[in-house]
């Protein structure tokens, strides 16, 4: 599985990428939505994109809309990973085509639980 981490903070990109690597993903990074679209346009294939909301050049919501407008990227799973925590923003992101929403700060198991809901990880067997 390949994941694209999109965030303008290098530290946050590294944190999210480390979590995803630990879960078995190969990761790439982009610092805004435009860079991420360029990677997709260049033919890089990903199963998952973890997307910050507020970024320069192209923000996360614009990226989600742009991806959903392209049929060839319909299988790309989109998760917002953002400090934006108002209910209305979650609604907007889902309406635009995001599959899930994780609010910062979050724990690694929170991201894993969302990936499991989306079928990208096996469900954990507790305890």
């Amino acid at each position, binding site marked *: 599985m390949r994941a694209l981490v999109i965030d303008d903070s290098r530290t946050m990109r590294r944190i999210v990428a480390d979590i995803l690597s630990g879960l078995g993903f190969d990761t790439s990074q982009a610092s805004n939505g435009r860079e991420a679209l360029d990677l997709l346009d260049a033919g890089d294939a990903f199963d998952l994109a973890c997307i910050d909301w507020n970024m320069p050049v192209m923000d996360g919501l614009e990226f989600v809309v742009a991806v959903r407008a392209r049929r060839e990227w319909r299988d790309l799973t989109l998760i917002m990973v953002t400090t934006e925590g108002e209910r209305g923003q*979650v609604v907007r992101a889902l309406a635009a085509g995001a599959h899930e929403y994780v*609010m910062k700060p*979050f724990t690694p*198991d*929170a991201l894993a*639980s969302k990936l*499991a809901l989306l079928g990208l990880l096996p469900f*954990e067997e*507790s*305890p």
Partner: protein
Amino acid sequence: MTISADTFTFVAELVRRCSAIQLPAGKEYLVETRLGALARQADFVGVDEYVGALRLLQHCAEHDRVVDALTTNETSWFRDFKSFQALIGHVVPTLLRDDPALTSIRVWSAACSTGQEPYSISMALLESAPGLAVEIIATDISQEVLRRGRSGRYSLIEINRGLPAAMLVRHFVRAGAEWELSDQIRSTVTFSQHNLLDQPPAGGAFDIIFLRNALIYFDLQTRREVLCRVRSVLRPGGFLLLGATESTLGIDDAWERVPIGGGSVYRISTADAA
């Protein structure tokens, strides 16, 4: 720094006596970690000193706090999602097929911790079987987790763990730094204190009982007794859902596993029910 053997023995016996939960050797780190905060709150320099003081007292609220601290486990929304897939995909459809006139479902969420399980059950039933009235009795030994469950408010960290975003926006509103469940979901759940060593909650038989990740903490005899008591309040044709790693096999032969793809789902065997 580690706790003394005497401290561990006293605490393990206290927890076993009050909850039947076993704290085997090797769990010293758990005692030290979880009681460290209580010791600091009570102005003791360490866990040994704190427990040493407790040993001099008759059983009081502070002892209950110790039991709470050691029997409260982390939970999440839709934990072991296969259980919920089984609930929606098999359990409820079977109950409706067996009784087409069914209009309400009574559920016991045993050892419910801070409420994520009963509320997850409520959301799943509301969305998959909106015509059914739902009554969920949620019990736990810990008053503290029950208080948190009743509040229906959860932190960001808790909300992030396993709750689908679509359910977040349908059933929660922001309340300051927390998120609060809708009255529609909260009104289906009644929290009450209950020790699994005691008789099950009164009020009638249950159609579905969730008893997940609790049996694993008990010894074999206690597991057998708990399963026997659970049987006494599960209505004929009802379902028991255990944790993913739990089974009735070799503990109580009155149960039979329901052969569905996922989820640890049991019914009282027809031979036993007859």
